[in-house]
């Protein structure tokens, strides 16, 4: 039962762009319009008007008079307006200009001798270059080489006025001149006269797009409101008719020319309402009309809005919230959404019973329910309580049943902005109560999501092919290693890192009950042998999650360098030494992915996530004011540090004033002072962080979470308990504001640390008003910068995407673009996939020169 049309799809192989000839426009025109109106008083389309039924229909119930189709089936048909006087197409004016200038005004030949043309043709130029050479060459020609006629100077005043030695040329003249150019000459220049003759750019007949291109809408009041294009076309026809009657009445030439110009204006704005030098056509309300060019152009135009980006059904959007219990392969979908989204199922002899059950089940029973059935003749019916029995009986192979989402269905999950291919991944549905999408915290990094109100979208693939592709290529576990750098991008974050760290500590031991609890969470029901007397160490728990064949030695940031504690060692799947922090966990994940595959890595991430969550719940990791309060001694030391730096800066200022300051090479004295002060004041941060680490101790929670990469940095700690230190605007100490001073609380030209934005206070003590203003200055700068940065980098990415999107690796590992041209002989110089290379704990490969070859 396979429909042939479904297998042998039709493909468009090429699209050709040409000019319409007047004959062509007349030929395809279903109706010649002669009434500058649309509907009559009864609301019925006027014959010969702009809603003529021969151009297609937009009202339900009516039938097209050309093809007999209804609103749904009629594709629409063009009409035409016979222009009584020709008019120049504004968009083609530059082309007309080019032809007028490079051909003889008398005989219509190209203003070059045959030899010259052959010379140009013989040279190695592209077509565009050839045409521009012809233009520049013919510009200089004073007399036609063929008929010796003198050439007058021709000017184009945009959009559509041509001048010949200051005299305005009428479109008829322009058209006659273009018509004189011979087909052979056009071919010589590389144009195809069969498809585009230059005089066709001077319109004698105007095509009128079908009604369904410019549908009118009925307002609530029952009034009809016409499309912008219809408005414009009505005006064109009206002026055209006025011009005609004036000509027939033998009106003076002046009046005729005025009307002609008006006709030209209307046609110009019909094509492009943003032409330079002419006022845009407006509604009565003063709003500018959106005409043809505006419909296509820009971000909201047809190309980028409707053609490059397509609207879809079968998608949903809601807020996301975390769920530490579901697998990273899953996403929690609210019941309400799952009920609304459907998947079509083809009924076959093998699943007909199942399908019947789906039709008969009711929603309250918490079963998967079918919502619609479609019979082979295309009739789609909603299943209701009243007709379900009947439909279930009728059901046969070949029908289609649309059923609600159920656990295990594959859906695509996405967060905007999609900067990555990991911004859309396939998850398996897990239907949960509540109204938010539940996201496992470990998949947060690739989406760059957090739970402060972020919303995300899901899309339900509707075909078997789509589902298979999503599952084999886009599933979360396949994306653990990022193709960007070859390292893990999915893995424990924030509290999970802290939890894992606590688990890996030497002093962490669990009783049998605790160990069983933890392991059960990860779905492990085997208990290892107790390794610390009768208790279980955290490392033993971790080891249960690791694959048995894993061997690894990684240097981690925790602990003294070189000591056994700083090295995470895993032997045959047993963790022997070291503490886990962000980097080493990620290395372990990378190693598992490489040696045991993506599924094993997924299981590890799921397991470690659940256990770590439980561990941090039990052990705790909290901070209090005490964690940020320095000892008296520490406070004194910080104060000393700041004071010393201040003194040092004052010394520099003294030296600067006495001109005894030693000038740094290539800098003026003032620049030297500035750079020396910046350095002294900048160094405070480093010195202070060392000092704080000593004073607060290595056990300090704030420092610990910074060090293991769970959250925050040492700078955050120094700013809270030490000093906020130097504020910077435009890479300099604060200097803008009042004359020679950033704030009026200082003397002019005061260069000392405090007067130039150095903040001595910390966030714990609070800032004084002056410091508060200083901080606001640099804070504002960084906010503005962020806003600019996102816009700029977004545009850069769009450009790169557009330039590189056609590049693809072929079967021989060459990289080629859309036209088949080779861009790289072997991808990346070695044909290797970034995702698949072993890169554990190893820095980037050095920049390569020419690609190495085997």
């Amino acid at each position, binding site marked *: 039962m396979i429909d042939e049309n479904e297998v042998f799809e039709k493909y468009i192989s090429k699209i050709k762009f040409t000019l319409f000839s007047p004959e062509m426009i007349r030929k395809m025109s279903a109706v010649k319009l002669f009434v500058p109106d649309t509907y009559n008083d009864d609301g019925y389309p006027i014959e010969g008007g702009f809603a003529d039924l021969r151009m297609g229909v937009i009202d339900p119930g009516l039938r097209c008079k050309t093809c007999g189709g209804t609103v749904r089936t009629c594709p629409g048909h063009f009409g035409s307006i016979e222009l009584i006087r020709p008019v120049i197409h504004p968009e083609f004016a530059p082309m007309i200009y080019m032809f007028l200038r490079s051909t003889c005004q008398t005989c219509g030949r190209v203003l070059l001798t045959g030899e010259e043309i052959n010379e140009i043709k013989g040279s190695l130029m592209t077509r565009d270059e050839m045409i521009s050479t012809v233009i520049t060459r013919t510009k200089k020609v004073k007399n036609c080489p063929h008929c010796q006629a003198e050439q007058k100077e021709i000017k184009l005043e945009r959009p559509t006025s041509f001048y010949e030695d200051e005299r305005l040329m009428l479109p008829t003249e322009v058209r006659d001149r273009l018509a004189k150019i011979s087909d052979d000459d056009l071919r010589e220049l590389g144009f195809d006269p069969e498809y585009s003759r230059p005089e066709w750019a001077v319109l004698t007949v105007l095509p009128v797009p079908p009604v369904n291109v410019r549908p009118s809408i009925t307002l609530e009041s029952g009034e009809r409101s016409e499309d912008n294009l219809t408005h414009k076309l009505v005006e064109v026809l009206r002026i055209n008719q006025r011009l005609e009657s004036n000509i027939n009445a033998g009106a003076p030439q002046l009046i005729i020319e005025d009307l002609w110009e008006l006709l030209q204006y209307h046609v110009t704005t019909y094509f492009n309402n943003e032409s330079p030098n002419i006022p845009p056509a407006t509604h009565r309300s003063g709003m500018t009309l959106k005409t043809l060019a505006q419909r296509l152009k820009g971000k909201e135009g047809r190309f980028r809005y409707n053609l490059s980006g397509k609207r879809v059904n079968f998608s949903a959007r809601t807020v996301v919230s975390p769920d530490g219990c579901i697998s990273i392969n899953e996403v929690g979908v609210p019941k309400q959404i799952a009920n609304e989204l459907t998947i079509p199922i083809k009924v076959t002899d093998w699943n007909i019973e199942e399908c019947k059950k789906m039709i008969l089940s009711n929603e309250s029973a918490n079963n998967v329910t079918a919502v619609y059935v479609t019979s082979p003749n295309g009739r789609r019916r909603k299943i209701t309580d009243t007709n379900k029995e009947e439909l279930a009986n009728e059901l046969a192979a070949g029908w289609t049943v649309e059923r609600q989402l159920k656990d295990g269905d594959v859906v695509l999950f996405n967060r905007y902005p999609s900067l990555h291919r990991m911004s859309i991944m396939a998850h398996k549905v897990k239907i949960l109560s509540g109204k938010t999408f539940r996201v496992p915290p470990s998949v947060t990094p690739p989406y760059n999501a957090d739970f402060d109100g972020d919303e995300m979208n899901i899309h339900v693939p509707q075909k078997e092919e789509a589902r298979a592709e999503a599952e084999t290529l886009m599933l979360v576990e396949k994306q653990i290693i990022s193709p960007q750098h070859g390292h893990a991008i999915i893995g424990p974050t924030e509290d999970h890192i802290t939890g894992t760290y606590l688990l890996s500590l030497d002093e962490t031991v669990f009783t049998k009950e605790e160990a069983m609890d933890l392991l059960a969470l990860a779905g492990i029901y085997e208990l290892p042998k107790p390794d610390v007397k009768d208790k279980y160490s955290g490392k033993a728990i971790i080891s249960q999650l690791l694959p048995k064949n894993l061997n690894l030695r990684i240097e981690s940031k925790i602990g003294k360098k070189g000591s056994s504690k700083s090295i995470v060692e895993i032997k045959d799947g047993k963790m022997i030494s070291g503490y886990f922090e962000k980097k080493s966990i990620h290395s372990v994940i990378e190693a598992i992915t490489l040696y045991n595959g993506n599924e094993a890595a997924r299981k590890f991430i799921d397991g470690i996530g659940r256990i770590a969550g439980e561990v941090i719940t039990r052990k705790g990791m909290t901070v209090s004011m005490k964690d940020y309060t320095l000892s008296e001694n520490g406070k004194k030391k910080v104060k000393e540090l700041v004071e010393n730096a201040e003194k040092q800066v004052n010394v520099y200022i003294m030296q600067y004033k006495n001109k005894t300051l030693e000038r740094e090479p290539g*800098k003026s004295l003032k620049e030297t002072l500035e750079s020396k002060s910046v350095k002294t004041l900048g160094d405070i941060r480093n010195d202070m962080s060392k000092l704080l680490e000593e004073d607060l101790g290595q056990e300090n929670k704030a420092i610990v979470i910074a060090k293991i990469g769970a959250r925050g940095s040492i700078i955050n700690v120094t700013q809270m308990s030490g000093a906020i230190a130097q504020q910077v605007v435009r890479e300099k100490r604060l200097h803008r504001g009042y004359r020679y001073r950033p704030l009026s609380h200082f003397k002019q030209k005061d260069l000392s640390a405090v007067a130039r934005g150095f903040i001595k206070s910390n966030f714990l003590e609070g800032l004084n008003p002056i410091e508060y203003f200083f901080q606001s200055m640099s804070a504002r700068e960084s906010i503005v910068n962020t806003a600019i940065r996102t816009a700029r980098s977004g545009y850069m990415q769009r450009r*790169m995407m*557009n330039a590189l999107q056609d590049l693809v690796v072929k079967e021989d590992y060459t990289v080629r673009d859309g036209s088949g041209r080779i861009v790289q002989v072997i991808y990346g110089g070695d044909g290797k*996939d970034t995702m698949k290379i072993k890169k554990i704990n190893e820095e980037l490969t050095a920049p390569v020169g*020419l690609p190495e070859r085997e």
Partner: protein
Amino acid sequence: MTRNVDKDKKDIMITPGEGVGILTAHSIGEPGTQMTMRTFHLPGVVEAVPTGLPRLIEIVDAKKKPKKPVVMIYLKEKYKDMKKVEEIAEKIDEVLLKDVAKFSEDFRKRQILIRIDKDEIRQLKIDLIGIKKKIKAELGPNIKMKHKGEKVLLITKDMPLRMLRKFTNKMKNLHIKGVKGINKPVVTKDENGEWLIVAGGSNLTDLFKFEDVDPSRSTTNDIMEIYNLFGIEAARNAIVNEMYTTMKIQKVNVDIRHICLLADAMTVEGEVVSVGRHGLSGRKPSVLARAAFEETVKHLVNAAINGEEDRLRGVTENILIGQPVPLGTGLVKLTMKHETK
């Protein structure tokens, strides 16, 4: 064992059909949002050189001149003594007339008075007569020169005022000494402890005329200059190096393959082509792809005039008309004959 190695090798090869262009654009574009706008002080360089996102955009745009060109001049001899290197740096440094002289214009008399700073030229070891000669060589036929000691008076004959100001500016930028365009050279050590000169401005052509300069190791951040001097392959490597270092400074980890692909795409044409409407995107063979990117109407109009054909081989075109794209699984053409009973 060899079989195993072979299998391993095959396992890590890239999958044919992979849309590596998109991958590259993603991988370089995504970290863009994280990068700082801040300019960065390269060790030794006096002026702030753009890094991070602005620099990245500069490279991708294939700008004729970078905002702040910088040259790294290595020397043939590995001097131990900093003095020697400093001497060379001094020789290279460009001195303009305005650096050593003060100008005053007399618009009524149409005269320009140039007062040369004696101390300054003594410090820079330039002799006065040489400067005067250089000034004289620049004078047009209508200008006379009088000079006495450190004062030089230029007398013009009824020169229009605007021209006079123009002429003053020209004289201010008169090249006196050093290499054109090179300013503020600084002597620093590189990571191997070797002395090198880092200077603003870029003019390798003239720099290589110096005997001490090692042309095989000295470089610039001006990609177009490298292209003009050494050709397209060097330009490609320059793009790779520049991108790589900017990424590294920002601590952004992007695989070298992506950078290489971008550099290759920018240089396949045989010249350095920018990424954007005037470069790679503007040169695409497909009308629809160009129209969908930027300047929609222009591309459609030109296509009609020239009777262009769109063969629908790229990604955008096929999305526009609703067909499978020629990438990945869309590339595989597999049909199965269905046997009917």
